[in-house]
């Protein structure tokens, strides 16, 4: 029995150590992998369209127009991979929260690569099918504002679906029935991790699906993947990883998707000293998401301790009257 436990510990440790090594390889290769045409937070729909046109030509990807914003900007769903585990990611449902959109285009570049990380990409391709909606709120991005053109917060519109953008997200979600969901946002640079001097550069949330904030297997799995991402990122931004409030918000997409059975994770990009355009935080998004993909593909996330998310991470704290 003891031997079995030791073996289990050993195999999970080996699994993790591979992930650390892989993350480090990505960390050092990042500048060669990244999408260079995106370099600041004022990116607009017109900046990503030429990149999506390039992706359309690549037969590893399937690009589908899933609808239009209020002002008739096209919203695309991008599909990659042939595996049975489905992951769905969407970014920038708040127009002034663009950091993860840039990271998604870094990921498209990685997945398109014919020379770098061949084995990793092959593994992801075999195990996963990944769906992306980059920039769900292009009209908001145009104005660098949170809300859509109706001045409705799309992330409080998951029940009523009064905005076309919310409807697109819900219809896409329902059509996919993904195993994992990634809801990608930015947060204030004035947040710290607990009452410390460290900015909350990345904060995670496994949204609650009820007012009691209980855990079921779906939410546990989200917490496990967050634990993996935290253990990877803490090497590169120790003390700067926070936890977003898990107060139940029935009108928010993350909470609804969690209740519908998709293990849903929020990643919030925040402040980092001397990084006003959040380019280092973008790199951390890339690292976190790719690490999450890998741990889901090789199932190492299953052995992760949810304790890292539930107890180790400090809550976001804000200091002021604002």
């Amino acid at each position, binding site marked *: 029995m003891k031997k079995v436990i030791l073996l289990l510990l050993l195999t999970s440790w080996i699994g993790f150590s591979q992930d650390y090594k892989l993350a480090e390889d990505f960390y050092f290769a990042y500048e060669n992998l990244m999408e260079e045409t995106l370099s*600041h937070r*004022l990116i607009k729909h017109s900046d990503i369209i030429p990149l999506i046109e390039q992706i359309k030509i690549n037969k590893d990807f399937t690009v589908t127009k899933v609808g239009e914003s209020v002002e008739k900007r096209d919203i695309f769903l991008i599909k990659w991979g042939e595996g049975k585990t489905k992951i769905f990611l969407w970014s920038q449902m708040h127009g002034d929260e663009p950091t993860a959109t840039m990271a998604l285009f870094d990921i498209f570049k990685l997945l398109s690569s014919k020379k770098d990380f061949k084995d990793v990409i092959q593994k992801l391709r075999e195990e996963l099918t990944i769906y992306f909606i980059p920039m769900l709120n292009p009209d908001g991005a145009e104005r*660098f504002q949170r809300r859509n053109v109706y001045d409705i917060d799309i992330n409080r519109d998951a029940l009523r679906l009064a905005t076309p953008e919310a409807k697109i997200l819900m219809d896409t979600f329902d059509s996919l029935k993904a195993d994992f969901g990634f809801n990608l946002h930015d947060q204030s640079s*004035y947040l710290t991790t607990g009452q410390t*001097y460290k900015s909350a550069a990345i904060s995670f949330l496994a949204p609650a699906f009820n007012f009691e904030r209980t855990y079921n297997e779906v939410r546990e799995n989200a917490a496990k993947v967050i634990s993996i991402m935290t253990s990877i990122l803490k090497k590169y931004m120790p003390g700067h990883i926070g936890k977003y409030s898990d107060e139940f918000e029935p009108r928010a997409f993350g909470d609804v998707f969690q209740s519908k059975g998709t293990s849903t994770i929020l990643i919030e990009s925040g*402040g980092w*000293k001397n990084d006003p355009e959040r380019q280092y935080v973008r790199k951390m998004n890339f690292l976190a998401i790719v690490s999450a993909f890998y741990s889901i593909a090789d199932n190492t996330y299953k052995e992760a301790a949810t304790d890292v998310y539930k107890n180790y991470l400090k809550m976001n704290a804000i200091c*002021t*009257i*604002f």
Partner: protein
Amino acid sequence: MYDILIRNITISENGHEYISDLPFMINEQPAEGEKRFRFNTFLAEKGDQSTFYGYEEFDFSGLTASAGLIYPAVIKTKDDLRKLDVYELISSGYTTVKINWKPGDDEEVYLLNLADEGKEISMSDLFKPGRKPNFIFKKGDEVVYAFINNYLLDVKNKSTIIATGKK
């Protein structure tokens, strides 16, 4: 968390003297039709901020902060403006110059406050939260630092310590 936090300053205004920290935040707005931001630094709070932190922190113990002065002469041309010795003026306590044209984009990067000649300028309540910085910091009688709009200046060494958004 604040963008800039000056600690332990003595504030001198309206005949009162008291100790306060001065925390600042920087508001950003996308510039119309351009892919860049415009920044506005403003005083976010007053009083003891010892439980909070800043991305940039300065301990100004022993220094006294007071409102900057308005330079008495009106500047008539951009050439005259360029000829002014900015740090010399600040050493004498001046942080604002009046000009007889409407300040435009090119003045955004100028270190001093530029004020329209015809407009009334309120120099009271400069230490109220919400106001943009327009202060000088003295050690004894000597002006050592100044905080004017988006620029925190080392007056003795004639250099910028913080220059938010400077091109």
